[in-house]
């Protein structure tokens, strides 16, 4: 039995985000959870299932510990580690859980304190060890840089073309009061920004941040009696290439091929039906790469596709209308889940895509290692 339209997202929880010193990860999980329940018009005591993405800076926090802090005895719970792909992967697991009747209201949450936590300060995302460190290979950005280099080599993509992604998302962020980086930038700003790891420049890379996010998934019947217009989960899928990019047959085909195929198959739609996208954008160039793997354009044409305002508000396919990870905030895939739902509710004010009915979101972990796609409709 297909899970198309068998579940809905009914609550979104945000917290202060960006540079938020002096807060524990647990406090972000709790605040985001309360806010998601309030948004849904649901008592927090109605939550009977929880799935969390473990916090990068405090992995001891579990779904069960969070439940205990809220006085909840759960029917269903899990700590689901799919790296950056967790937000989308957890949504799929929650959809299965409510459809199966394992729980009625599944709260899904994440928190990070990588900006302010003294034990972290980005170290989590710069880890390096073993033989790689002997060669000076540090940080996940360098793995992405190696993938970007192959993309440029195989398809002729250029740094300047990647810049169009950063410029578009910064424009969107300028319309989003929650965004951390709201000053518009130009392609020249991008081209003049320093190398982080060549061929990636500073404006190709997302920062690390503090904050929490939560959303609530329930059945369509329950969703119709809550405060917000339900956003239905139409289709979803996953695709997971090898964790070590160098062991993959190719660096330029992502897990989006498989996760997109499964998701579009379940939803029974094609890319042409999608009104707005939230594409995981820890690095600019992975946006065109995923768009082509999802079928929004032909393989190898993604870098051309993202030019000339096509992915900007008003373009043929608005992408990352919140500013994304590059300009709104780095809270992994949870930035995309929330913006996709907000667009379908019509809650986005000056950055609203008029009449948006169908949204596609992706989340991606490791070095394009784990991948999840979810298609939503209002």
């Amino acid at each position, binding site marked *: 039995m297909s899970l198309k339209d068998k579940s809905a997202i009914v609550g979104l929880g945000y917290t202060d985000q960006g540079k938020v010193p002096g807060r524990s990860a647990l406090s972000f999980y709790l605040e985001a959870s309360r806010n998601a329940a309030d948004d849904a018009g649901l008592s927090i005591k109605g939550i009977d299932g929880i799935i969390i993405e473990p916090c990068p800076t405090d992995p001891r926090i579990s779904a069960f510990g969070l439940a205990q802090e809220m006085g909840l005895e759960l029917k269903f719970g899990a700590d689901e580690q799919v790296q950056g792909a967790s937000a989308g992967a957890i949504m799929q697991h929650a959809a299965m859980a409510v459809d199966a009747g394992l729980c009625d209201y599944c709260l899904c949450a994440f928190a990070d304190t990588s900006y302010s936590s003294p034990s972290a300060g980005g170290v989590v995302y*710069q880890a*390096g*060890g*073993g*033989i*790689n*460190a*002997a*060669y*000076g*290979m*540090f*940080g996940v950005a*360098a793995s992405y*840089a*190696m*993938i970007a*280099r*192959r993309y440029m*080599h195989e398809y002729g993509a250029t740094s300047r073309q990647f810049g169009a992604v950063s410029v578009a998302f910064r424009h969107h962020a300028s319309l989003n009061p929650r965004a951390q980086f709201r000053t518009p930038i130009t392609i020249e700003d991008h081209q003049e920004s*320093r*190398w*982080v*790891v*060549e*061929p990636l420049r500073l404006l190709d890379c997302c920062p690390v941040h503090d904050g929490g996010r939560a959303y609530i998934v329930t059945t369509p019947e329950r969703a119709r009696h809550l405060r917000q217009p339900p956003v239905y989960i139409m289709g979803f899928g996953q695709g997971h290439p090898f964790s*070590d990019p*160098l*062991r993959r047959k190719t*660096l330029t085909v992502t897990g989006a091929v498989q996760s997109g195929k499964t998701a579009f198959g379940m939803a029974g739609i094609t890319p042409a039906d999608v009104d707005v996208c939230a594409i995981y954008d820890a690095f600019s160039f992975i946006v065109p790469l995923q768009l082509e793997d999802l079928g929004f354009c032909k393989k190898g044409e993604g870098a051309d596709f993202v030019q000339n305002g096509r992915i900007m508000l008003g373009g043929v396919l608005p992408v990352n209308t919140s500013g994304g990870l590059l300009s709104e905030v780095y809270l992994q895939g949870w930035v995309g889940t929330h913006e996709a739902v907000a667009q379908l509710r019509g809650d986005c004010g000056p950055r609203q895509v008029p009449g948006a009915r169908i949204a596609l979101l992706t989340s991606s972990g490791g070095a394009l290692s784990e991948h999840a796609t979810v298609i939503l409709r209002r």
Partner: protein
Amino acid sequence: MSSKIQKPLPRVDELHRPFWEAARRHELVLQRCRKCASYRYPAGPTCPECVSDELEWTRVSGRGTVFTWTVFHRAYHPAFADEVPYAVVAVELVEGPRMLTNLLDCLPADIKIGMPVEVVFEDVTEEIRLPKFRPVSR
């Protein structure tokens, strides 16, 4: 030299001991599957192609081509401070597996995908001779 900050050294554990012992003789060895003849790198307990655990360390050619690379413009470890900008390169060996490494005798600006390279060993310590690569003319 002795006052300089040491670069991080790989840990020589049971799994990798044959690799480092061969490196001391300036030989590059990889695990090869007795069942399906595939090579694997990095080292591990099974052959991912056929999931056999009958692997044997086998000397390989040490030749390959540059598959991709990146250039670090900042040192994330103090021992690399004098070397920025420096390149980290992935070499695809003729036997198949790809190795992360550095290129000797080649500036970052001169690196090209597909350029032929061969292994050379850098004597780091008595125990560790680190396989690196250098360009070869075709």
